[in-house]
């Protein structure tokens, strides 16, 4: 059985950007933000200043952090093993992320997962997902 552990404090640091600053600040307080268009009303991922559907202005909103696995790959050769995934957020967008704190053999497409903020080597928040309680 391949165990996928937490990598809290071990993730490579994400580059900083004016477009991610508010997300990072909220994430440090444990709040998971995504961005929604002020013109067409659609949420998107990854967050950006202009809507990828209509190029309208966008704004932040707090998201539930609930989702389901869209696809995943277990990288068992890496030490320690890890799992890259796309997760479909309850709000609609599908985001590239990683699955943590799980057994590789228990993962499945469609599985319910919950957001967990881990930290990069320099303490930047990294949005990951773990199996939902009871899921």
């Amino acid at each position, binding site marked *: 059985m391949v165990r996928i552990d937490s990598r809290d404090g071990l993730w490579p*640091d994400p*580059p900083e950007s004016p*477009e991610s600053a508010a997300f990072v600040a909220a994430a440090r307080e444990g709040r998971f933000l995504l961005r929604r268009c002020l013109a067409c009303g659609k949420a998107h991922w990854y967050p950006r200043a202009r809507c990828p559907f209509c190029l309208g202005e966008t704004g932040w909103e707090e998201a539930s952090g609930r989702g389901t696995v869209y*696809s995943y790959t277990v990288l068992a*050769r890496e030490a320690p093993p890890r799992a*890259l*995934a796309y997760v479909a957020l309850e709000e609609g967008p*599908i*985001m590239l992320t990683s699955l943590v704190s799980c057994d590789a053999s228990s993962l499945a497409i469609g599985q319910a997962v919950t957001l967990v903020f881990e930290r990069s080597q320099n303490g930047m928040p990294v949005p990951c997902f773990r199996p939902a309680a009871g899921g």
Partner: protein
Amino acid sequence: MSINGRAYIAGAYEHPTRKAPDKSVAQLHAEVAVGALTDAGLTKDDVDGYFCAGDAPGLGPLAMADYLNLDLRHLDSTDLGGASYLAHVAHAAQAIAMGHCNVALITLAGRPRSAGHSGTAARPVIADAPDSPWEAPFGPTTVNLYALCARRHMHEFGTTPEQLAWIKVAASHHAQHNPHAMLRDVVSVDDVLASPVIADPLHRLDCCVVSDGGGALVVVRPEIARSLKRPLVRVMGAGEAAKGQRGGEVDLTWSAARRSGPAAFAEAGVTPADIKYASIYDSFTITVLMQLEDLGFCEKGQGGRFVADGNLIAGSGRLPFNTDGGGLCNNHPANRGGMTKVIEAVRQLRGEAHPAVQVGNCDLAVATGIGGLLGSRHGAATLVLGRE
């Protein structure tokens, strides 16, 4: 207006090296340029258009244009990753049709094998790429992102690892005849499944080789092509497209070839059923399977059944593909396989493929490529080529 018949591929050359630690990348570009011009029967001074992509050292096309000391009136460094060179053929045909050049040289070369750059290595983070703040921590390497596509395809359509393995098996049947191929041993489905899992569900033998080397093409206007001694390989149709994460509306079951393929067939006035030989970009087995579906060789989701049981093997299968052994067995120079896809299609159309894999009366071929990362952001380019 169409490019059909407005330009011909008059020269093609694949560098025989697979490891070149003692040569510079510029030197390899120059060597393949010489090879393709010699093949065409042209000289450096005939070249007035130059095309290259991100593998070329220096700023865009400028450093190589200077290194080769070319006197140019048309330059293009469109970069669609490994699919660039298929797009370059189309762009060269467009430029020729518009009278902007007569003889277009396209070069590719690189030394990732000597430099230790492979698809499992962490990709250097491009700090100002807009996706990096969101994705860089997760180390989305090349093979990982293709594995995500394979997993989803299996989930939606019941595609199996055995079916993917058949793609490698077919490539290996072809590579045994290619003295330059890196991997010349014929492998079985069981061999592929027994190879180590790199990124679940992809095995080591689902992945292409990492090789040094390169290739070049010469595209010319029809009058020049007819004045040369080489068989006439006509550019009949082309398409290109890009696909990303679509704002979060991710769908990993199809590629941008869904747009580039039909566009190329339409411009050429042919259908997939007419095709005698197919060069299909094979960075990974899943890349081939998805493009076959997206080009319309079979219904979406039926790719696994299409490729199984040796149906891609020249001589016995319904669609001979990558008869040089492809990126899976022969060569994937600079981690960019589009150039070699065009070169083998040209060989087939000229009747110059290895006799053991030469397709009889091969007068219509398709070459198609995926560049970048299939599971996040990629480009596609497709060419339909014919022999006159």
